[in-house]
């Protein structure tokens, strides 16, 4: 696929193909089994029967980063863990998405002031698609984040050229594909 990525103009055919791919991607976001702290328990609650993330096709937690599309970072990332989070992200296959779950990961949370070794927001380490603040966010709030991510993923440009806004974002955050 590689060479055709984002090279074709937007027309009916590419729109349709991209639409189908986007539908596939958004309907089957497999998260990684990855828990750090308190928020991981609420993340488990999202997989569990009461909320059941599997309804959106996202209930196949994969243990290995290679097969997962989404890394939910649930809990404080500190200096020791940040290296690992970064490596996990690097090991994931494109397209990959990141949800920052919880206040700690969104911007330091309760550890923002006196935390000598916490990373104040995982967006300092890896590019984040959706932030879900809360301490910990309710399972519904995380699902809300995942739904927002689905909307975002559904409009991915695969063969079409990137829109100007996407390019602008890329330039701003230096997300080199």
């Amino acid at each position, binding site marked *: *696929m590689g060479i055709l990525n984002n090279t074709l103009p937007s027309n009916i055919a590419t729109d349709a193909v991209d639409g189908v791919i986007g539908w*596939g991607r958004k309907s*089957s976001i497999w998260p990684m089994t990855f828990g750090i702290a308190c928020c991981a328990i609420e993340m488990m609650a999202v997989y569990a029967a009461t909320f059941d993330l*599997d*309804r959106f*096709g996202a*209930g196949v937690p994969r243990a290995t980063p290679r097969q997962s599309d989404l890394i939910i970072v649930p809990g404080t990332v500190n200096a020791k863990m940040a290296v690992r989070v970064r490596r996990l992200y690097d*090991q994931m*296959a494109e397209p990959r998405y990141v949800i920052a779950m919880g206040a700690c990961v969104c911007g330091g949370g309760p550890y923002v002031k006196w935390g000598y070794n916490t990373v104040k927001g995982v967006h300092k380490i890896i590019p984040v698609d959706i932030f879900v603040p809360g301490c910990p966010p309710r399972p519904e709030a995380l699902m809300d984040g995942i739904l927002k991510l689905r909307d975002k993923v559904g409009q991915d440009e695969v063969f079409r050229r990137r829109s100007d806004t996407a390019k602008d974002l890329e330039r701003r955050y230096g997300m080199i594909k």
Partner: protein
Amino acid sequence: METLIGVFEQQLGLEGVWALSAAYSVCIGSLLGFITVYAMFAIWMERKVAAHMQVRMGPMETGAWHGWAQSIADAVKLLFKEDIIPSQSNKVMFWIAPAVVFCGVFAGFIVIPFALGLQIADLNLGIFFLISIASIEVIGVIMAGWASNSKYSLFGAIREAAQVVSYEIPTATALLVPILVVGSFRLDDFNLWQEANGWLIFHSPWMMLAGLVFFISSLAGCKRAPFDLPEAESELVSGFHTEYSGMRFSFFFLEEYASMFVASAVMATLWFGGWTIPFVDMSTWTDPDSFGLSDVAVTSIGIVVLLAKTFFFIFVQMWLRWTLPRLRVDQVMTLGYKYLVPWGFVALVMTAIFKYYGWGWFPN
């Protein structure tokens, strides 16, 4: 297969090699299509079954009705996912391992009689072929595990090798029991025999034992819980396919469900009458006197009967998976060598005695 070649030769006027290759293409194409559709359905079914056993809903939002399109979405996504080949891996092996794994199972499909005469290769040694071809999958798994250059993958591959090789003994022993009674290696003979005499499972208690032994060892052969050690998620991350992503990973997924189908279809054919309905002679249905059905209709009924039985066993496999904890690697070996192998032989010997003296519930 022969029929198909005949059709191509006579109706389309193709000759020799051309007819053969055309027939091959049709068979392979239809089989691949069948496996893909079946695997998608089975994956969706597994998710729904698991969900309802766990008091939740399972896929709901993809596709209108109960998430029926879930597996299609998964396939689309996996198709367009980046294919990572680790830099430290053995690249050639890494590439071909999923194909080798899939080939082994795929070849198993060609001897399964879906209905009367609907069989791609009507081999005289059908069961023998099945047992031997199933071992190819192990080679692929070892290739995958070794080529990944990851310790977890290696562990998974070695576990798989030990497990599958060990469990071939009880599998083969258990398969010998119906062979002993029917006196043939040809799979369609079992269907015909059972059409006339009733299901083999009710032949004698020893036949039931053999069926149980086969079922348990086929679980191990398919790497299904409680024997899912090669990919044990809580121990080995993902086992031998830890480093695989995208489409290559989906081949392993496909292989797992395809081998479930083969094992269940063999179970259904050998012990539960395959495409036949007991004590009903389906070949008479084409007579204008009875039902006057066309050949196609009778074949379709046969397919439906076989699929129903097969899916029952697939359901049982899923049911077990979502109930039982996983065995440890030495316990798997213990179960294989200390329990299944002896009991398989007991079943074999006792069935031989029963057959010799004509005992059993419907002696023949």
